[in-house]
């Protein structure tokens, strides 16, 4: 009897260990496969040249440029808004009030809205309502910003990544010791002076973490930009806010599903995926490092 109980315990414990192992194996297979197939073509020419010969030759520079421009615009929108919302939640809002509850609930649900619904929202709200409205009022109905373009795509991604920034910033605000705030007040600082001069500089690491995580997320999302501005091929780089753009993730999607000759584009495709992974993982890695430093401080205070 005792032997059986011990065996059952051992058996199920190993099963849980096995599921951990399975996750590790799955991740290594995916990454290993992509690195293995994508490494050879990953040259300077590949990341700096234009695509040639119907995307079977040349590089992916326009897609990289588009991705960078897209996430930069997104960061400009999401970081100020997300930080302000986090400052409100942690510094201004009366804790436990109904409004705080509603804002938190909205954030949680925002994080769970499917990416494709963000795409519909971007098309309906930004492109047609905001863009179309601006065109009607300022450009007497001619098509200027009432079309899918990099501005609307980046704003759509900004809404998508808003919860990421708020959560990371709030964590950083929480890590600032109360004594710092009290010291600032004791020296006669007003609330905003205290936040600006003491709390925000102290939590810059967390704000950065949030921004980087948001960029990493935004760089990988394809569904929200399908109808808000991404293009399969453009002979020029986006220069104005109402230009369309090429993007790495979208490039992968289109090449995978719509290329006439999959075998011919396969090497390029693998290298493109590798670049996309390097971008998102590089950023993620950096953010995790920063965050672990903040968490360590949080434990010591």
């Amino acid at each position: 009897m005792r032997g059986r109980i011990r065996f059952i315990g051992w058996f199920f414990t190993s099963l849980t260990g096995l599921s951990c192992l399975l996750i590790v194996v799955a991740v290594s297979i995916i990454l290993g496969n992509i690195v293995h197939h994508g490494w050879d073509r990953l040259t300077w020419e590949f990341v700096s040249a234009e695509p040639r010969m119907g995307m079977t030759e040349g590089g992916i520079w326009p897609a990289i440029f588009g991705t960078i421009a897209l996430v930069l615009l997104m960061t400009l929108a999401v970081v100020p808004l997300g930080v302000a919302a986090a400052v409100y939640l942690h510094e201004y809002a009366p804790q436990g009030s109904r409004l705080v509850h509603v804002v938190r609930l909205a954030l949680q649900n925002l994080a769970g809205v499917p990416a494709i619904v963000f795409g519909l929202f971007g098309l309906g709200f930004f492109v047609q309502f905001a863009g179309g409205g601006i065109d009607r009022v300022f450009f007497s109905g001619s098509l200027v910003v009432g079309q899918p373009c990099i501005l609307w795509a980046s704003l759509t991604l900004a809404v998508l990544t808003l919860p990421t920034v708020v959560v990371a910033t709030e964590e950083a605000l929480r890590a600032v010791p109360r004594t710092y705030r009290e010291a600032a007040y004791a020296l006669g600082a007003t609330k905003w002076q205290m936040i600006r001069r003491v709390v925000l500089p102290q939590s810059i690491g967390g704000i950065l973490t949030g921004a980087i995580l948001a960029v990493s997320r935004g760089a990988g999302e394809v569904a929200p930009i399908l109808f808000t501005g991404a293009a399969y091929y453009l002979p020029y780089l986006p220069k104005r806010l109402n230009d369309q753009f090429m993007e790495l993730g979208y490039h992968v999607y289109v090449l995978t599903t719509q290329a006439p000759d999959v075998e011919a584009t396969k090497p390029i495709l693998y290298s493109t995926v590798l670049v996309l992974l390097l971008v998102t993982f590089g950023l993620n890695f950096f953010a995790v490092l920063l965050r672990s430093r903040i968490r360590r401080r949080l434990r010591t205070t």
Partner: protein
Amino acid sequence: MDPHVSELLRRGERRWGERAIEVAIHSSAFIVVAALVLIFVFVAKEAVPMVTSPEVHEEVTIRSMVEPLPNGKFSWQPVSNVPKYSLLPLLVGTLKVTFVALFIALPIAIGAAVFTSEFAPQWAREFIKPVVELLAGIPSVVIGFFAIMVLATWVQDATGCIVRLNAITAGIGLSLAVIPIVYTVAEDALSAVPQAFRDGSRALGANPWQTAWGVVLPAAKPGVFAACVLGFGRAIGETMIVLMSSGNAATTSIDPRESLRTFSATIAAELGEVVHGSPHYHVLFFLGVVLFAVTFVSNLAGHWYVNRLRGKLRGRPASPKPVVAEARP
């Protein structure tokens, strides 16, 4: 001017500047709530003609989407001469692939969470968590790419399916996106169970597995359930993986070896080519509303369960009248 007065004036200015900033900060919180409301409003706005517009009704009504077609079948062919919009194939496809994904992801993710919080040595814990974060950080388009390029061949070799892109391939791909969220929420819940529960169980002679199965898991049940619900929400809404690896054929077959088409993939595949303002356009936004509603409800339910777990572990009595108080003379 008297220096005292000018100093006072400057302070007054500063207070005005401060006021403006505080208003901006307050309104940012409002924007967060407004964003969620606007998402619903602007997706629903384009779906409203499904109910109100007679022009749309000539081609499709909500009722005609649910009822069988004149030939007694259900089919989704929005661009044929006589457009057919039956929801059933999409519903079957969505549920089929979600079921396969959850069938794979839930045991693995919850098992891994139990291992991490109950049995793993410190070094293993510090290894597995970043690996799961890594998995969560892989863009879904990359998982979709991997599924169509590599996984599909393996699945076909292993099962001998005739259809290359089927629910098994898409389900495995989808499970890779579901595992991180289920793992994270479940692991949080299990770690939140106080150490005293485990100590008590071990002191009564239970072994680690009995403790985990009989004490820790039941204590963390609302959190583990929340993990499943949130995983379901993620699986239903995921787009790129199923769009790339499911074959996108709208069939009513529940056989996992057949290909399928989900709500999300339908929107992604068709909205690009649809005529703005056509019945088809409004139908796609209607699908968006359905997706939004389903994920919204499952998210609310998930977070409700997480909060309940927190309350439970904090020792708040489940019923308004604590049993202990009644037992006292």
